[in-house]
């Protein structure tokens, strides 16, 4: 159950003087059960890339396969593919349309052709998974808060029970608590249901703590594809691409520069706290 991209190119508005070469010769394999962080500056082609993965954009050139089958091959059912590869769009709350939250979440499973009971069960589970309160199931999706809308929209895709879940900047515009909640939810889906996750983001802080593999894009090409710790060693290159390391990594680097013996490649707050505490203890004991 893996996905591969071979020499995928995407050119928008091809025959005009404002054509954009949004993806340049992308080669990529997405294995089962991975948690991938996809990161890059604004306009580098992250959204374009993820929309190729479930067949929403047809590559100008190149091959995309799902479980070894060409997704544009004869007889391949792309509608079914979209049930296996769930994509939560950037600002997904703009796609809500039903009278109440619950029906909106039912939309995806209904399109999969499931029977009523299964549809409702899935919608219920999905809303529960995102932590949406039961008593608000009947409220209009236009009247709940922005953060709640985001949860409903994510539930709308979760209810389709995808094998691969792609989230395009799911934390954009949320407060720290909302971000934490959503990231925690994604990480739980990965741990407990061993779902393959692709998390698109601008912010290293968001992905650093969760992703096992980091793909960095720059102007339509893949610049790095490695473990986060390895990627973060290229500080100067990342900064030249308009990206930054996680905040804690900067702190650790400053500490190291000032003569403290710490690991300066740490990327999460918990690791950093442990390192600093153990350093403190070793000095004062």
């Amino acid at each position, binding site marked *: 159950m893996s996905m591969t991209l071979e020499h995928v190119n995407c050119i928008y508005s091809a*025959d*005009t*003087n*404002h054509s954009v070469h949004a993806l340049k010769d992308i080669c990529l394999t997405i294995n089962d059960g991975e948690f991938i962080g996809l990161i890059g500056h604004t306009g580098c082609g992250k959204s374009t890339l993820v*929309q190729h993965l*479930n067949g*929403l954009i047809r590559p100008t050139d190149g091959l995309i396969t799902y479980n070894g089958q060409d997704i544009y091959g004869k007889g391949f059912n792309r*509608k079914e593919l*979209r*049930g296996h590869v*769930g*994509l*939560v*769009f950037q600002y*997904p709350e*703009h*796609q*809500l*349309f039903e009278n109440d939250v619950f029906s909106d979440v039912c*939309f*995806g499973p*209904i*399109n*999969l052709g499931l029977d009523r009971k299964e549809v409702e069960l899935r919608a219920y589970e999905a809303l529960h998974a995102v932590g949406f309160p039961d008593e608000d199931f009947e409220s209009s999706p*236009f009247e709940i808060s922005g953060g709640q809308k985001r949860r409903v929209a994510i539930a*709308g*895709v979760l209810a*389709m029970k995808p094998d691969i879940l792609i989230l395009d900047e799911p934390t954009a515009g949320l407060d720290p608590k909302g971000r934490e909640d959503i990231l925690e939810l994604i990480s739980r889906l990965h741990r407990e249901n061993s779902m393959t996750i692709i998390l698109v983001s601008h912010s290293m802080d968001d992905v650093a703590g969760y992703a096992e593999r980091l793909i960095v894009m720059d102007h339509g090409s893949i610049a790095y594809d490695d473990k986060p710790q390895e990627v973060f060693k290229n500080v100067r290159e990342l900064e030249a691409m308009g990206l930054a390391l996680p905040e804690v990594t900067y702190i650790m680097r400053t500490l190291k520069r000032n003569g403290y013996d710490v690991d300066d490649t740490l990327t999460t707050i918990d690791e950093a706290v442990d390192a600093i505490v153990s350093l403190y203890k070793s000095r004062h004991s």
Partner: protein
Amino acid sequence: MIREITIGQYYDEESVIHRLDPRVKLVATLIYIISIFVVNNIPGYAFVVVFLGICIALSHVPFKFIVKGLKPVMIILFITIAFNMLLTPGEILWKFWILKISREGLKAGATMALRLTLLITGSSLMTLTTTPNNLTDGMERLLRPLTRIRVPVHEIAMMMSIALRFIPILLEETDIIMKAQMARGADFESGNIFRRAKALVPLLVPLFVSAFRRANDLAMAMEARCYRGGEGRTKMKPLKYNGRDYAAYAIVWLFLAGCIVLRIVL
């Protein structure tokens, strides 16, 4: 997908046509439209086609791009041709059941199709080479005399420029919402007409919601900057005629004269 629609879009390029004053382009388009209905014989049409061809070449807009803009109106074109062919009485060329095609009908259909194509191509050349802001500025200036008889010219121009500005935004939005619903398994392409109409609900509801939200935001932003209509309002870049604008005026009038001559003489 839907972003392929190019009608009413601006195509950014450097060219003589792009640099012309919008008033010239508006008047020229009007004259051009009149001339399409003036000519009535093959040399006449050839003259118009050549004139349009030269304008397109001068504008540096790729011919392919213009043809792409014609696609959405193809259906209307075909319907017009079909009706003209089938319903015009005259010498019968071909008959099948109750369908009859007459020589006159064939001619009328062909003429109509040619005229419509020329009309649409010509007027889209104007929108392709003029930014929406320039276009409405030109319109406002040309219609200014009407303010004397209390026509709210500035307001009309403002509404037009907002509407034009919103076309690409709403198209982009439609594209995104459509894809987002397709990601949830929506199907906009198959099924009979009723199913397809029903399939549009998940697209139209969010689209309307967002259009109203945008309209609301825009109104708020205008009020925050104390917008209060056209009275006493000055322009940042007032329109000014140049040498090439007068030359362009002369050329289009000559063109119209040419069309009239071709009609009378031949």
